[in-house]
């Protein structure tokens, strides 16, 4: 440690009323280093990043930039001090065109253009409204905008989470390039692969405190997870545990049968079955029609053709309420889509079943309370900040979105990337929960962008490419390599009928 740190934060704390978001965080960043900031959800990573970039100010703590105390109590001031963030959500002003967005932040246009090209977006119209730019590209623009002002410290909060693989790779390359020019990067990610490939050191937070700083060397993952969770984590594969679930009804009856479903131009001629007691994985690259598939099953858009049968009867959903009535519940990856953020945990969980049955009379509070309490306990939701859901951590919010459907006793869950941006511990809990639900005879359709999850949770994997089901893989062979091949539309072994629907009924290895 001969070089002096570029950024040095010590004893940083932030309280919101009675809730301490950060108790005693510290972070020391050397010049030219890529530094991972890690911690379970709710550990205070986002709070620390917001403090370092002036979005909120700390109650106590000392933050030195190049050895000097700098005023970073607003985003503009932090920017001047050389600390530039790229947040989890896109930060472009939706109603301004890209050029005006640059003007607003005094970003030079030419470097911006160069970075955009560097990041793998060759044709960008600067006159386009930010609203009309696809989400993944918006993230890239956020990053290019940050890079263009040549910051000393770049803070990337879950930058790669919403990016398709090809863009994510370019982002990682560019971040590496930054460190070579002597600039530093603080990198937040839940993907160990990225951290191993990119970072020099990692600071681990737990419950608002810095619990360790480790060098990234091969095999350090276990140690980091240990630090994050404060206890040795069980690395038990849920799949293996499944053998013990003797209660699981093998080959349950068909719950949902989708036949030749097509939605707009995005989804064509999709057929598959979902059985009682199974978790069926859906795997696809970004924007292959999976959003439309889930929306059609959840009743929020109407399919252009094909049929959906529930329990053998054909249904036509014209409203999500129809789907809920049929026992089909949608759990979106974006929690803000599902929750009434300013309401309490109880109200959020009770909403679907209190609003059910067209029951607008008085709510039976006692019964409601018991059901909600049951769901909260079952999911182990941390209810310290239960008066407003928006104050819960991301992982706990996701648990609430699932808990409400458990409380409403939905028979089928449509989970769309439910573990996006959630810490390892909560992910494990959600996997376990989905398996339990399946063991009880419920069915789950589970889209995931993290391929390793398929073998952890699913019974088989439905692979969609270009709006069509290109393959249905039994779980035994659905490892990351096979799924990746399938997701890019490459044929499995010498299977000749790729692109043609794999008929589920004739598939002999649907269940293990």
């Amino acid at each position, binding site marked *: 440690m001969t070089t002096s740190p570029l950024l040095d934060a010590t004893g940083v704390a932030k309280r919101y009323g009675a809730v301490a978001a950060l108790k005693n965080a510290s972070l020391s960043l050397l010049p030219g280093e890529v530094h991972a900031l890690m911690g379970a959800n709710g550990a205070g990573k986002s709070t620390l990043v917001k403090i370092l970039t002036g*979005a909120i100010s700390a109650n106590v703590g000392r933050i030195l930039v190049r050895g000097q105390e700098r005023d970073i109590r*607003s*985003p*503009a001031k932090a*920017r001047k001090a050389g600390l530039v*963030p790229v*947040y989890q959500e*896109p*930060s*472009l*002003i*939706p*109603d*301004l*065109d890209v050029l*005006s*967005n640059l*003007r*607003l*932040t005094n970003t030079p246009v030419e470097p911006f253009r160069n970075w955009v090209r560097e990041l793998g977006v060759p044709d960008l119209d600067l*006159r*386009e*409204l930010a609203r009309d730019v696809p989400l993944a590209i918006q993230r890239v623009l956020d990053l290019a905008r940050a890079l263009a002002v040549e910051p000393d410290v770049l803070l990337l909060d879950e930058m790669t989470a919403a990016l398709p693989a090809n863009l994510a790779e370019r982002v990682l390359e560019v971040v590496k390039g930054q460190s070579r020019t002597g600039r530093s990067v603080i990198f937040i990610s839940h993907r160990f692969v990225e951290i191993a490939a990119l970072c020099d050191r990692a600071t681990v937070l737990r419950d608002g405190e810095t619990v360790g700083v480790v060098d990234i060397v091969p095999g350090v993952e276990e140690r980091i997870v240990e630090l994050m969770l404060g206890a040795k984590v069980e690395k038990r594969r849920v799949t293996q545990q499944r053998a013990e679930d003797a209660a699981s009804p093998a080959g349950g009856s068909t719950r949902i049968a989708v036949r030749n479903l097509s939605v707009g131009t995005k989804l064509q001629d999709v057929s598959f079955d979902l059985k009682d007691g199974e978790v069926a994985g859906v795997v696809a690259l970004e924007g292959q029609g999976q959003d439309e598939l889930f929306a059609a099953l959840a009743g929020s858009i109407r399919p252009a053709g094909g049929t959906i049968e529930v329990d053998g009867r054909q249904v036509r959903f014209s409203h999500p309420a129809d789907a809920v009535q049929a026992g089909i519940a949608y759990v979106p990856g974006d929690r803000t889509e599902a929750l009434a953020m300013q309401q309490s945990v109880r109200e959020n969980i009770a909403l679907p079943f209190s609003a059910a049955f067209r029951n607008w009379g008085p709510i039976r509070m006692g019964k409601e309370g018991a059901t909600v309490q049951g769901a909260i306990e079952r999911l182990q939701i941390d209810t310290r900040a239960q008066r407003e859901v928006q104050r819960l951590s991301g992982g706990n919010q996701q648990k609430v979105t699932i808990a409400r459907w458990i409380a409403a006793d939905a028979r089928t869950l449509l989970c769309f990337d439910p573990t996006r941006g959630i810490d390892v511990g909560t992910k494990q809990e959600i996997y376990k929960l989905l398996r339990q639900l399946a063991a009880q005879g419920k069915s789950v359709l589970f889209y995931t962008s993290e391929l390793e999850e398929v073998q952890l949770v699913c019974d088989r994997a439905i692979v969609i490419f270009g709006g069509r089901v290109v393959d249905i893989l039994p779980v035994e062979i659905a490892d990351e390599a096979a799924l990746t091949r399938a997701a890019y539309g490459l044929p499995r072994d010498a299977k000749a009928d790729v692109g043609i629907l794999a008929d589920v009924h004739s598939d002999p290895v649907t269940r293990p």
Partner: protein
Amino acid sequence: MKHHFRRQGWVAGLFALLVALFILTKFIQPNYGAGDLGSLVRAVLPYAFAVAAQTVVVIAGGIDLSVAAMMALTSVTAASMMAGASEEYALLVVPFVLAMGFALGAVNGILIVVSRVPDIVVTLATLFMLQGAALLVLGAPGGGAAEWLKSLVVGTIPLPGLPDSVTAWIPKSLVLLVVLLCIVWIPLNRSKLGLSIYAIGSSELAAFRSGVPVARTKILAYAFAGLFAAMGGLSLTMSTGIGAPIPGPYLLASVAAVVLGGVALGGGKGSLLGPIIAVFVLRLVRTDLTLLAIDPNVTAIVEGSIMVAVVMFGAFITMRSRSS
């Protein structure tokens, strides 16, 4: 080019509607002439300034319920100061009243930013306060106005080289309106402040994270609304020669024109031109219905229906063009 057209499409449509209405007016009343246009613009003047005030605030993502009350207060202040005073004195009164509007607007903004009470509540409260203050300044309609001020809105502008038959169609009041709006709006729109106003209206969080001083921008947006409201108040005094302490029907009219003018009530979208054309449309509809000798109560119903119909039609067109 494509973007430009999409953004201006609404305004162009409104303008076409306005032209159609003028033709309809000429059809209903064949001798509708330059003089009638002049009185239309004079009637529109206070409405137009109220709309300008509302537009700035709505683009910034807020709403200002105190517009009409502020116009009343500035109007009576100007009228009572100019009553019996010399013509030259009015040269001081005008900037004073404009500054007063700017300051009162800023107070609105400061209250909203500091107290964190929702804008609709704060401006409702200031509506009552300003109303009361106006009655304290003048208990009943009265006061006076300098002759040169009054003459600013009467008659036409003789342009050298143009025959009277052409200049007769350019009323002074229209020129005054256009000049005043342009003097304030164009520099504002080109500046970083203008950009920031759109930014905080579009997404306050994203604006904050982009380093926009959200509080300051919001205060200035309300201040500019106050400035426009003061212009509206002055225009009332100019065209009537007195000041009236009871606010006119400008508040709801301003919101109506803002909506009709293609400014999203959620903020961030739209420009000043649309609402100004919209206010002409709404006034001209009223004129036409009066010319047709329709019951004034029915007139109000028709106005409301037109608003809903136009906004629905616009949304429909936008949806169609998006999906194709």
